[in-house]
């Protein structure tokens, strides 16, 4: 009996760990971000719009899938993928998609689909990173994002984060 309880405890803890995403190291500038593995997902600190993503932006690595604790940013949140590669020289654009589910304070859920085309870059300083910026977060308590792309399974990620008013 004790053995079963111990096993269940371990499994429950393991599962909760697997469902929790976390923030990792910070990378700046773009060259440093491009040194991370292909398909790495980042949260861009203090940035709410894609035109604000500059060379000196601070990219915070998102490890794993699941719930995430992000600093409060009233204007919005931006995420980016590392698509730097020297092996894919096709110059063909890849479609990056995201399904965004916003849970409002009244409990309603608002879904949005996003897609954009980006060409994997062999240029380490390229600022054209696949990114997703979410605005209009006022009155939103939870945001869930499902990423996927034809660039490969590394880009299939699911994260969620709560917004504290």
């Amino acid at each position: 009996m004790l053995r079963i309880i111990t096993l269940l405890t371990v499994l429950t803890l393991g599962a909760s760990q697997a469902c929790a995403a976390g923030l990792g190291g910070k990378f700046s500038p773009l060259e440093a971000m491009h040194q991370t593995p292909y398909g790495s997902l980042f949260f861009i600190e203090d940035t709410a719009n894609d035109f604000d993503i500059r060379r000196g932006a601070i990219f915070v690595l998102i490890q794993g899938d699941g719930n995430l604790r992000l600093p409060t940013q009233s204007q919005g949140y931006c995420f980016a993928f590392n698509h730097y590669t020297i092996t894919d020289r096709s110059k063909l654009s890849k479609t990056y998609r995201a399904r965004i589910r916003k849970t409002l304070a009244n409990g309603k859920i608002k879904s949005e689909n996003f897609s954009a085309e980006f060409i994997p870059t062999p240029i380490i300083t390229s600022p054209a990173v696949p990114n997703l910026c979410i605005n209009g977060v006022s009155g939103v308590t939870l945001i869930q994002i499902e990423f996927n792309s034809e660039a490969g399974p590394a880009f299939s990620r699911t994260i969620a984060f709560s917004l504290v008013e």
Partner: protein
Amino acid sequence: MSASSAQPASPQASIARPGTRLRKEFFVSTFVIVLTVLVGTVCIFALASTLTQSRILSLSFDGVPASIWKLDSVRQDWSALRKQIADQTEALKAANSANLMLEDRGTKAAQGLNWAKEQLKDTLYEVSASLSGIDNDLSDFLSGSADYGAKVARLKASNARLRNGQASLAGVLDQFDKISGAYAIAKTEYDEYDAESKGLNQKITSLASGIKSIQDSIDVVFSKITKNVDAPTRARIENALYELNPTSTWFSKAISWFVILQPDVLSLILVVLMGVLGSSMQILHSLFRGDGIQSFGDYVLRLSVGAITALVIFIVAKAGVPIIADASRLNGDAPINPYFVSFVAIISGLMSEQAIVTVQNQGQRFFANGTSEPDRWARQDLNPDLAAQNLDVPTLARYLTISNEAAEAILKGSQRATSEQQKIVAIYLRKSVRDLFSDLPQR
């Protein structure tokens, strides 16, 4: 009558003779000059080849002197491999050049496809929005994450049904047909480029690895000469092989033909050619001195004599017979100095008469009694010495196998004693040959 009829013929003959002689002189002089130039040219090849061969043979690998035939065998393999490398490098250059040109095509094809894809994406969203409420399942599929190929295929499959059912969809479906057609063309263009590029890249990889593999094979070929093929050894071997390897020019081919001859044969060829050159010099000198033109056959004979004399002098000198001042330079296994050998051969041809006399003298001395020691006379009357030791003439005569009178004459110094006789007399009198005999007869 006969005398008077012969008279008029004489002036005609005297007029015709100088013309014929001049023609003969001209042809013979031309022949001699052309021959000398030709012989000189061939001598240049032979001397240059001998020098090259000497230089190559002075190399040693792991303490073992190089062999010209072994090097030539390696050279043939090395040359074939180098040709393969040259061919593959040329092919690699062509492939890289083609790849560069293809790159431009690829960029254009990718741009076209990216643009068509963007258009298709927008159109599919438009169709998806139009289908909302009409065919929600298809609408969701078109806005979902399926790939464009699947979306286009499904929409095409439903095209006729949608057109029949909903006339309002005609505009957006027409747009889809147009854009999907453009996308298909762009995709085909890109796929063609991609296939070509992959084939070309595969070829480039294969050529590059082929070149690397051939370079490794060269090391294997070099290991026939030495097991330690380090960088300096490799450079030395390659230098030697480059000297052996003929280029496409006839000069290089001729030199190469000479260089790979067996070293002793090349030395003898050099000697004979230099002998002919010496004779040619002698003939030209006599022509310029105005000694007169001889017959064609005489010149050919002189050249032959020069060649044979040079060969004989070389053989005699190599045999160790002292016919030249510094015999050690040609003795036995002394390394061949091509310039010295050429000099000896040239003077042998140039002074062939003297050379023949020198060899004859050496031969006479050699064949006279099987030794080079000359006959000598007793320095003084040796009879008192004989008496002082209680020895007698008949016993000595018996040892010398000559008569008593002849033995008496040798002791008195009135008759020459051969080398053997000198030794027997010296032993009999217990003295040295040097003390008893002299090269000069007594007065």
